[in-house]
């Protein structure tokens, strides 16, 4: 297990998997907010598919984390019964959808990160996890294709779409360090190359403001996660154990 790229000095493997599962669940919930509101029917379906991909990864990781933890907790317990402070997702994924440009830029940053993340898990000593990561890698590559295609079109589009895309980059850039800290340097550089290339093609500028925010991995969230969880969890919290 020493070669596991996720295991740091203080968190167990189960806790690491939970954090990644939280990323996927929270982003799935966020993307689900687009359903029936996307600019076009085709885009509605595309975003719905991507949300379901993330939900599937979250479920698999929660289940695996529960097995490793050995306390009998499963996916529903992790998803529906933990309060905000126990969620360890990145601040980036809980940020509001904003306009379409903001959702696509958030996707670009996160998808490029997940491609590196899942690729790095290919060699870990846990066949269950490598199976999950292998499938997730294929999905993440497609998500990245989708988001980068849109960022290029928005950035290099009309004056208004360019303005909105640049505002999204400026607004979300501050959440990237927290995410990239988890990648080994070579993958961090790969992220930088991919994202810089897309932004360059999109005629968008990387912000020069060095300000960065973190804390999601320690359960210190922005004001946006609470309402998301409240909406997602209220049924299970009102009718504990409800099934359908």
């Amino acid at each position: 297990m020493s070669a596991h790229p996720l295991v740091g000095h203080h968190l167990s493997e189960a806790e690491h998997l939970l954090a990644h599962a939280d990323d996927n669940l929270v982003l799935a919930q966020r993307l689900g907010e687009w359903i029936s509101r996307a600019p076009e029917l085709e885009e509605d379906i595309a975003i719905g598919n991507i949300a379901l991909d993330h939900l599937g990864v979250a479920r698999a990781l929660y289940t695996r984390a529960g097995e490793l933890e050995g306390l009998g907790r499963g996916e529903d317990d992790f998803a529906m019964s933990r309060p905000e402070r126990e969620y360890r997702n990145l601040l980036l994924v809980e940020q509001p959808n904003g306009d379409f440009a903001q959702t696509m830029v958030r996707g670009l940053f996160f998808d490029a990160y997940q491609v590196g993340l899942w690729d790095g898990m290919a060699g870990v000593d846990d066949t269950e996890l490598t199976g999950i990561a292998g499938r997730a890698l294929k999905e993440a590559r497609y998500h990245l294709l989708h988001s980068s295609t849109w960022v290029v079109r928005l950035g290099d589009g009309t004056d208004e779409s360019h303005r909105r895309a640049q505002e999204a980059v400026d607004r979300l850039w501050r959440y990237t360090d927290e995410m990239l800290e988890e990648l080994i340097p070579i993958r961090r550089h790969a992220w930088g190359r991919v994202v810089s290339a897309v932004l360059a093609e999109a005629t968008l500028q990387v912000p020069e403001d060095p300000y960065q925010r973190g804390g999601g991995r320690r359960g210190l969230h922005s004001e946006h996660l609470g309402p998301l969880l409240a909406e997602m969890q209220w049924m299970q919290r009102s009718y504990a154990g409800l099934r359908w």
Partner: protein
Amino acid sequence: MTYDVPVAPGESAVVEERAELSAETWPMWEVFVRARRGIAHVHIGSLHAADAETALQNARDVYTRRGEGASLWVVRSSEVHAFEPEEISDFVDANEKPYRLATTYDIPDEVGHM
């Protein structure tokens, strides 16, 4: 297209205008999928997209979902040429010329798609 939309006080019915605008700016594409090697691409539907690249991505999402076909084509609907219905009616009806139909041949199963 105009139709009555419930509008809240102070709100304008901009939804319609945007729908018309996007229908103008996003052209239609016809989608063809080949489910596996060895059979022809089959037309499965159409969609809106801004350009060929996004049309392909949309086609993947709308029509192939998880069961990826072996191959996917998209063609601008405006590039499809067709006969008018009245022109079709002038076509020779093969049913009136049964000698043209190979109905008396038994096709061996091994031939497969034919």
